[in-house]
């Protein structure tokens, strides 16, 4: 009955139980921490549509929207002891099909134009950065295990990371385009969470996460076509 094998088994069983209970408790603290993310500015600075190719060897020509934008947001309440990273991304959303345009269904097409991984100090060592940038990042939070100030974003006249198009290759002269800020909180253990459309207990919905509606202009021909010398 009390052989060493049984004892080993019991010890291991107890160990895993304790680990999982502690993990579940840590995960549940997310729900008692208030969140009140606010966007103070989300606007476009310049919008243009250019003609280009999906990759160097492609002969296909597509229209790409290049949307420069400014963003000011306070996401500091998302950084808690269980936050591993916050993934912040801005999408452009627009209707394309006639029925969606008529219904004003902006979310018919969604494309990320810019994103950023904000690591918590506890996960800085995992970030994919060069040595200099890594040193700077670690120095910025020296001695701190939680750094809510990283959630304060002030981004001005940001170039988009991704130039977007539509499968039809047409994106110029589109009306009712909006920019939307999203975030995804990645925990050390527990549930992944995103920005909410409604309040959820102690978590407030993301305020002002939408930009004003804007229109994409006609294709800008002068610069891009001139460079490639193949004006149409």
């Amino acid at each position, binding site marked *: 009955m009390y052989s060493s094998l*049984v004892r080993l088994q019991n010890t291991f069983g107890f160990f895993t139980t304790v680990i999982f209970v502690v993990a579940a408790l840590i995960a549940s603290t997310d729900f008692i921490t208030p969140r009140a993310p606010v966007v103070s500015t989300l606007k476009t600075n310049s919008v243009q549509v250019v003609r280009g190719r999906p990759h160097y060897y492609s002969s296909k020509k597509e229209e790409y929207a290049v949307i420069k934008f400014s963003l000011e947001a306070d996401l500091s309440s998302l950084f808690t002891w269980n936050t591993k990273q916050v993934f912040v991304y801005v999408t452009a959303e627009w209707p*394309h099909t006639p029925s969606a345009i008529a219904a004003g269904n902006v979310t018919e*097409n969604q494309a990320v134009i810019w*994103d950023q*991984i904000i690591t918590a100090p506890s996960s800085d060592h*995992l970030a*994919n950065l060069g040595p200099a940038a890594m040193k700077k990042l670690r120095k910025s939070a020296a001695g701190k295990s939680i750094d809510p100030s990283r959630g304060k974003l002030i981004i001005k006249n940001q170039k988009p990371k991704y130039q977007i198009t539509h*499968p039809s290759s047409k994106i110029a002269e589109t009306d009712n385009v909006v920019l939307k800020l*999203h975030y995804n909180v990645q925990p050390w253990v*527990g549930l992944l969470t995103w920005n909410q459309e409604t309040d959820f207990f102690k978590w407030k919905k993301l305020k002002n996460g939408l930009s004003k509606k804007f229109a994409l202009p006609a294709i800008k021909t002068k610069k891009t076509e001139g460079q490639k010398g193949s004006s149409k």
Partner: protein
Amino acid sequence: MFSSIGNPRQAAAQLMNFGLILSTAFMMWKGLSIITDSPSPIVVVLSGSMEPAFQRGDLLLLWNRNIQAETSVGEVVVYNVKDKDIPIVHRIVRKFGTGPNAKLLTKGDNNLSDDTELYAKGQDFLVRKDIIGSVVGFIPYVGYITIMLSEHPWLKTVMLGIMGLMVVLQRE
């Protein structure tokens, strides 16, 4: 210790016990599969393309039902590509259209370019049915054991042996 071998009734009970453990595990897995509507409700991360969010060996819990909203941009999904066995965990970055035929494009947070290269030949986008679940829960490190088991097959034999031995030697 081996007294049970001489006693057929006890030996049969132990065999039953072993079968019960196996079938319980199987039932729980399949039950979870039905609840989440996913053929594989728990997956282990195999690559670093979603770092720093997910590392090799982390365990992900999936959910494959669209109760409130469609699977859309920003969700981290696990998808299968035709003729490739390994499911991939990446984030949806573009979605064109609505409904089951909406065109979805994915990208790993840690990758520079999107997944067009990873898709089957001639495939530019995913559709909803390629996706076997969206990541909703995260448990670190636990899945590393399966990576070790698949990379060092002899460990599997050793572990099965130990487990079998334990059940046989256990007296109740």
